[in-house]
């Protein structure tokens, strides 16, 4: 008996058969993968999310519009196909996003989720013991800060708007964007720079 085919072999067979009938184009697949792997600040990627967050920190009118009309405002950067809401962290509330059932993520803004977001460990544990999970990311949230864990159980995506780090007065958007990490937009991290004083 021959051993079971590997995933790579199965993927190759599937691609060949779909290509035989004109449902996929191998060159297009290569181009799509390459584009995802090299996404920059103008397409869905953490860099694009960082630009949005930095602008919200620097521009009060934009922040208000982002919170009130997130789909329309974010669609100015890249069209949003799925409803998306913005969760604003405050000194009293810290938001964290998960999808316990699969891997729903604001991909339309941030690109594909990282492996940890899709892991069984994160999906099972963050709704039950968020403080312990955040500690594994090296992220502390003070005992006086309410933790809100958002389980993405519907076609409603979330972007966390983290707290602007102190000591950044007068910084321009580009400099601020450099402090915005991908994890700070999912809630498992804080922005870089002077440690956030929340809590």
């Amino acid at each position, binding site marked *: 008996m021959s051993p079971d085919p590997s*995933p*790579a072999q*199965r*993927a*190759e067979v*599937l*691609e060949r*058969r*779909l290509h035989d*009938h*004109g*449902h*996929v184009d191998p060159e*297009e*697949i290569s181009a*799509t*993968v390459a584009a*995802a*792997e090299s996404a920059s600040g103008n397409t869905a990627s953490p860099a694009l999310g960082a630009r949005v967050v930095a602008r919200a920190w620097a521009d009060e009118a934009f922040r208000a519009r982002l919170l009130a009309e997130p*789909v*329309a405002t974010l669609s100015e950067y890249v069209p*949003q*196909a*799925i*409803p*998306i809401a913005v969760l604003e962290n405050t000194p009293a509330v810290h938001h964290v996003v*998960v999808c*316990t*059932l*699969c*891997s729903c993520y604001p991909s339309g803004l941030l*690109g*594909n989720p*990282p*492996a*940890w977001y*899709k*892991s*069984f*460990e994160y*999906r*099972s*544990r963050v*709704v*039950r*013991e*968020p403080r312990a*999970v955040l500690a*594994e*990311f090296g992220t502390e949230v003070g005992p006086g800060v*309410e*933790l*809100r*864990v*958002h*389980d993405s*159980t*519907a*076609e*409603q995506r979330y972007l966390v708007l983290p707290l602007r780090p102190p000591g950044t007065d007068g910084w321009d958007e580009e400099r601020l964007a450099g402090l915005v990490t991908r994890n700070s937009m999912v809630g498992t991290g804080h922005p870089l720079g002077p440690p956030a004083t929340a809590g």
Partner: protein
Amino acid sequence: MWNDPAVDGAHDLGGMHGFGPVPIETDEPLFHEPWEGRVWAMVAAVRRGITIDRFRATIEQMPPAEYLTSSYYERWLWAAERLAAEQGLLERSAPPPESPLPSPATPAGSGRFAVGQRVRVRNAVTAGHTRVPRYLRRQVGAVQRVACAWPNPGESAATGRYGEPEVVYTVAFAGADLFGPGADHTVTADLAESDLEEER
């Protein structure tokens, strides 16, 4: 395939014990093997003629032991193979008619429940696709906001087409109600009107 209950499948992980530390990578490649990226891109083609809910529901049909021992893109590959066959994409060239996503700007309107109202999650256990995680069934929470309007996922998984939009609410639950007195956090979930009932 729809004879197998998806409810309480291995995918329904929220609140489960026993999983270890979160695997946090330092280099974080988007794809760990070349075939993963190709499967990711191919899924767009096998999903074109159906709904995202049917794609998810297909993954949920994976036997639990296999689900828990497969990598993320192995689960995608498993579903892609089945969805390609199911739609006849491996035998013929005519692509299935597209099932376009509803507009994300669909007005949610006002539904049955008001913001602040206490609601209970229905204990509707059916053999089919649901977006109600088991850790929330029968729990009482408060409506925080109307999130959006979207076709019912159970229906769209079964038919492969998007139906009429239904009001979806963000409901907030006290962590202590879900996981005991040690839990001082809040959990919110986005639940369809048909998944909720008034709590008296």
